[in-house]
């Protein structure tokens, strides 16, 4: 009791209040001061801590966009499922980048590493599914002499499919090589792939024998094996057309392929390395002047053409931005209306204590919204509902205290003693009921379906905050205000009579 009413606690409350006001309001002050619109994105808008900008993260149902749950099927035997999932996520990430989405969310899920969840703001479902679900097929080609060819990776040569494809690759990874200085990409082949690759590299070396640094071999096109994504025989048949070749031989372009029309030619080349020696055993290394970024890109590119699993879309949700904005407006209106009703009712029914509780309620709402920005909590429609309901729970604790306060006053206690006794006696009920709600929130947060999770998180945060606000803030306000003599009148306190001190 003494602790709750002590100065350190009061200072703490004031500090929380100032911080919440800053987090919630600084952006609006900045907008008004600089004559900016009150909504919409503004770069560098405060609150902003060294580039870490705070703002409300809106879920897809409020921001508009597409949500897809993918099931991974046909896991290959003998590979770590966690690894396969990670590689698939990297591939999806790469494809998503071509869509230019802000803050895409791609998460692994599922009890057995067999799910991937993708959230893309501002993208429609058709476009998203085309880009993400696209099955790229990786092919290896060798080079065959053809004098009619004038340009491309190897002038005077055209590619020929080798039968070595993505199905023969089990994985590709970017790492630092044994010297510890340069980035390389390691490729591991399956056992049938290893045999095919061995034969191809043997042919390479036989066509232009010698050390790769000697000019004879270094300038020999037939010493190369090119890796492509989605290159088809039709593409190869067009190789005599120089403009076609220069387009198709440009670096692989996932975005272009996703939006492909029949007459559009997209880049499909991943790399065209020279073969140093015959490689048996199924482990190859591509080296060159890689940066970490370019090595990762190449590894992901190879993986995307050799994904060992199939992606099946389990569910797809697309929400248009207008519907999202409409939902934000409606839930804001509902929240404000609810708050106004509660405040009005509390003041009419409980007079001065009701007013104090309303102040505590505003403190509570401001603090919780600041927490949502800081953590951050992604707000969804269900999440906002959870927040509005937590306002109801915050009121409940106050009602418990005030009803008890009235009883204590009726029983003949002085105001100060009654406030004290009311808070103390109401506490076990407030504690137990909030604990039960909090436990429910924790359970829902872990096992509920995803929509329910958002609800559980905001309600859980709200329950904890309301406990602090109702016990600490309301109690302090009551203690401070009611010690001022002017308020000890029955009409202001909502009781029949007050015992003189």
């Amino acid at each position: 009791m003494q602790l709750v009413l002590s100065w350190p606690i009061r200072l703490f409350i004031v500090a929380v209040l100032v911080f919440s006001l800053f987090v919630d309001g600084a952006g609006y002050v900045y907008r008004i001061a600089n004559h900016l619109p009150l909504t919409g994105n503004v770069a560098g808008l405060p609150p902003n801590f060294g580039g870490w900008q705070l703002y409300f993260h809106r879920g897809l149902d409020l921001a508009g966009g597409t949500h897809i749950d993918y099931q991974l099927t046909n896991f290959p035997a003998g590979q770590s499922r966690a690894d396969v999932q990670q590689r698939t996520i990297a591939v999806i990430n790469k494809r998503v980048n071509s869509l230019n989405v802000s803050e895409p969310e791609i998460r692994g899920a599922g009890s057995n590493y067999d799910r991937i969840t993708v959230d893309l703001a501002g993208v429609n479902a058709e476009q998203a599914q085309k880009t993400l679900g696209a099955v790229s097929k990786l092919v290896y080609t060798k080079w065959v002499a053809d004098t009619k060819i004038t340009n491309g990776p190897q002038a005077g040569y055209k590619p020929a499919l080798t039968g070595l494809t993505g199905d023969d690759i089990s994985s590709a990874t970017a790492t630092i090589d044994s010297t510890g200085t340069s980035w390389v990409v390691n490729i591991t082949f399956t056992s049938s792939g290893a045999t095919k690759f061995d034969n191809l590299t043997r042919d390479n070396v036989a066509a232009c024998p010698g050390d790769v640094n000697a000019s004879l071999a270094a300038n020999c096109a037939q010493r190369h094996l090119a890796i492509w994504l989605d290159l088809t025989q039709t593409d190869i048949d067009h190789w005599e057309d120089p403009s076609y070749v220069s387009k198709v031989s440009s670096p692989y372009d996932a975005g272009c392929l996703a939006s492909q029309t029949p007459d559009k030619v997209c880049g499909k080349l991943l790399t065209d390395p020279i073969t140093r020696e015959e490689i048996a055993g199924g482990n190859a290394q591509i080296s060159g002047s890689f940066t970490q970024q370019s090595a990762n890109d190449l590894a992901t590119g190879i993986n995307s053409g050799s994904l060992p699993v199939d992606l099946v879309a389990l569910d797809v949700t697309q929400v248009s931005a207008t519907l999202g904005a409409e939902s934000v407006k409606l839930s804001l209106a509902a929240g404000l209306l609810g708050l106004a009703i509660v405040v009005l009712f509390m003041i009419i029914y409980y007079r001065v204590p009701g007013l104090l509780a309303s102040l505590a309620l505003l403190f509570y709402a401001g603090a919780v919204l600041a927490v949502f920005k800081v953590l951050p909590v992604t707000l969804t429609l269900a999440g906002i509902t959870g927040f509005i309901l937590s306002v109801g729970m915050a009121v409940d604790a106050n009602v418990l205290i005030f009803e008890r306060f009235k009883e204590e006053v009726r029983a003949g206690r002085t105001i100060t003693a009654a406030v004290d006794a009311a808070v103390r006696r109401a506490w076990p009920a407030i504690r137990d009921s909030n604990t039960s709600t909090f436990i429910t929130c924790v359970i829902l947060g872990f096992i509920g379906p995803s929509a329910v999770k958002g609800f559980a998180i905001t309600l859980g945060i709200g329950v904890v905050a309301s406990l602090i606000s109702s016990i600490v803030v309301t109690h302090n306000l009551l203690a401070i205000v009611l010690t001022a003599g002017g308020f000890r009148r029955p009409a202001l306190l909502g009781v029949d009579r007050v015992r003189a001190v």
Partner: protein
Amino acid sequence: MVAEGKAQETAVVAQPPRIRRLNIIGRRNLFFAFSLLIIIPGIFSMWRNGFLLGIDFAGGTEFTVTFANHPSLAQVESAVAAENLNGSVIETSGGGYIVRYPPLNAASQVSVQHDLENRLGPMKVDQILEVGGTIAGESIEFSLLAVVAASVAILGLLAWRFHNVPGGWRAGFQFGGSALLALLHDVFILTGIFSILGKVFDLRIGEIDAFFVTAVLTVVGFSVHDTIVVFDRIRENLRVSQRLSFEQVVNLSIMQTAARSIITSFTVVLVLAAIFISGGETLKGLSLALLIGIISGTYSSIFNAAPLLVVWRRLQPLR
């Protein structure tokens, strides 16, 4: 932070003058009967008809669209019927339509949209939901699991919190068990009424989806709130007024806390009514479910939970 009341303190059991001493415990059978009057038809409807399942649980593909040419419901229905895809049409309050199909793959989603545009003119797609059978099954599973897990946790919490009343753990389980029964009462009232709304009256608002599960769990939370307040008062009164019989203590505690339960629920009902009237399509079903549940929860905590505790105490007397 705040300690529970100590034994040497003077007890405050004076009666508020305005509240009459209603004998709730004495008329408990009447209140039980009233609850059963609603629960039994609800359970019957759930058993016979089940629920009107929303897309979250049934699976399928759903388009929320607005047509530029504002065709009538009949026109949209005949266009959808002509597609032969087992589609169904629901009119929304905003002049738009919700068209539902069994699960469609990405390609047929696109072709269905083109087809609708060809038949009914340009349209704006507000929302596409596609839920496969796997996810739908999991949602049902997780939801049931969540309700059961929450109930068990609440029973355990209450038994622990109330095992310090005379009678020890057995008394704790009497308190916890009565609260659990009151909670199940609210769950059955709510699910029963929604089954009747959805299946007997064919109203779309009676649809069961993830939001409904959220509502059920919130109701569980609120109902337990109310019940704990009454039980907490019983615990306190058992300590300070040992001259009264158990029944008298319970009745007194109900009367002392009824004002608070009704006031809290009333404020929440006001907020929910505001959401129900002004909120969007998605929030309507949710707020109706919460309204029914909160009212039921308040009723059960006053008229069922504590009377059940008395009945239990009679069947299993603790000194």
